């Protein structure tokens, strides 16, 4: 257990990534749209100032867009993924103890550093990421991860803090907790916030002072951990992800509702293919595959969600094998008459490809399939993903289940043919 964490998080990450390559938009309102150009998932501060909220549906803000000449982008995950990688690598130069919490947030464990000038160190982190990568970040430092999150949030909101806030002094911590609403505490969702406020707990400070027994009785053991963390007792250590993923999941929400089996089959087999290529990339095979489908849990129509798990006779990373079993799984859980919103494939029980024990009764020609897979991977690397597909994946033409991304920017950092072009 350590006693000092920094949370570094990027400001308006997707919007900031787009802006780095568009100096003409540096002070303008911009928004980034979710999958299927559905709703707003990132806004520049200027867009926030115009009243645009996170999650606002695109069609609802079209008037505002015209009025204020707001630039909008479809999500460019290739770009954001690469930029996130650059930020994390930059943070790694400050300490090797990093937990990449999400695409734009990382926890740094500073517990081993003695006599650190925290304000300078934190400011150095902020300035270095901005200079080296080009993305603005805020840094919050505190004795627990939950408090570091609170520090980070205040660092972002307070002009005086200017993006850096150290919360180690008990007086400062108390003041910060009093200024933080209970629903803004990490681990307290909107449901719990409503529940807690009915008992008079509306700030993080009041939550911190709640009795342990009461929390255990009315909430959960996770809430108790949150409360302890608010008190400065670390309950969560850094979670450093292992090199290889222990399970790989590919899933997508559909652009439109899907009702027919052949269409979901296309989606599921594409996801299985993607899992297969991710496995090959890390030189692993998987011995278990799960297929899941679901309707929209937030709508009025009937809810249905199901998973089928299949243990494979031999661990594999072949498109053909995984697709075969994904299809079998889907056929067993698909029920007609529902409006499906999402489907996915998860592969697990992952082992290095060299360790795979072949099944005595296996009749598949694995060597031949491997050669085929390698060839497909080569074509994919050269010409882009889904260049070669198994027939049941569909022809890739605009289908209901494909993502709509009509306003995507160039992949400035991942495709040579899309790098910035400058007139000199």
């Amino acid at each position, binding site marked *: 257990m350590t006693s000092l964490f920094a949370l570094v998080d990027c400001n308006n990450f997707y919007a900031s990534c787009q802006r780095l390559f568009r100096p003409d938009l540096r002070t303008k309102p911009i928004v980034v749209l979710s999958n299927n150009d559905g709703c707003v998932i990132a806004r520049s501060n200027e867009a926030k100032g115009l009243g645009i909220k996170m999650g606002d549906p695109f069609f609802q803000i079209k008037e505002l867009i015209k009025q204020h000449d707001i630039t909008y982008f479809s999500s460019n995950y290739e770009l954001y993924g690469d930029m996130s990688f650059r930020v994390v690598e930059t943070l790694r130069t400050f300490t090797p103890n990093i937990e990449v919490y999400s695409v734009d947030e990382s926890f740094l464990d500073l517990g081993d550093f003695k006599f650190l000038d925290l304000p300078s160190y934190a400011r150095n982190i902020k300035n270095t990421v901005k200079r080296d990568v080009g993305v603005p970040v805020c840094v919050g430092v505190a004795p627990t991860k939950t408090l570091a999150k609170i520090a980070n949030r205040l660092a972002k909101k307070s002009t005086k803090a200017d993006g850096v806030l150290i919360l180690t002094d008990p007086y400062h911590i108390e003041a910060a907790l009093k200024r933080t609403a209970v629903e803004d505490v990490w681990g307290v969702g909107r449901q719990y916030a409503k529940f807690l406020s009915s008992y008079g707990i509306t700030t993080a400070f009041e939550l911190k002072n709640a009795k342990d027994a009461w929390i255990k009785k009315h909430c959960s053991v996770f809430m108790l951990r949150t409360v302890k963390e608010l008190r400065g007792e670390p309950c969560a250590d850094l979670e450093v992800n292992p090199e290889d993923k222990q399970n790989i999941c590919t899933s997508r929400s559909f652009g439109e509702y899907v009702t027919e089996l052949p269409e979901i089959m296309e989606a599921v087999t594409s996801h299985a293919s993607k899992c297969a290529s991710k496995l090959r990339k890390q030189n692993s095979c998987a011995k278990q595959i799960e297929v899941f489908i679901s309707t929209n849990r937030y709508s009025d129509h009937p809810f249905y969600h199901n998973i089928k798990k299949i243990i494979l006779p031999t661990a594999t990373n072949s498109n053909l094998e995984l697709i075969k079993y994904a299809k079998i799984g889907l056929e067993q859980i698909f029920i007609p008459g529902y409006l499906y919103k999402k489907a996915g494939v998860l592969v697990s029980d992952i082992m290095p490809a060299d360790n795979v024990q072949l099944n005595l009764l296996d009749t598949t020609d694995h060597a031949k399939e491997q050669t085929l897979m390698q060839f497909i991977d080569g074509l994919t690397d050269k010409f882009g993903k889904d260049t070669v597909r198994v027939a049941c994946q569909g022809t890739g033409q605009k289908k209901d289940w494909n993502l709509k991304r009509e306003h995507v920017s160039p992949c400035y950092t991942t495709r040579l043919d899309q790098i910035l072009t*400058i007139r*000199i």
Partner: protein
Amino acid sequence: MKNVPVLLPDHSYVELLNVDLSDDFLLPLYSCQVSAGFPSPADDYLELQISITDIVTKNPRSTYFVRVHGDSMEDVHIPDGSVLAVDRSLEVVSGNIIIAIVNQEFTVKRYMKRKGKAYLVPENKKYQPLEITPEMDFEVWGRVVMVMHNP
């Protein structure tokens, strides 16, 4: 087919399965990776191949690629169509070729300081240097560390 009991010296017995060998049956071949053959003498000397990244930049995480169009930097071997590697992490001093933002547009020029004043200097006699004044909308984006173009 009857199993044949065989008496062992300690008075226990085992049963031998009586198999009719006139039936053909195929056994699947158990295949696995077997190391065989002579190890390569080169194995001890294998090193990683030269990575193009090492030649282009010392700091991949802060380096970006851009393509340029135009002739304003021809005289220093940056012809139209060149691809430049730009490192944002490096300090910029007088004499460096940089990517800058001027009036919200990208440009590539040599950054020069002379007698307390700063300039963006083209490398082509057709064009004039631009003085960088404090009121100007100017920002350094990064230092050019490598120029790539076809011979």
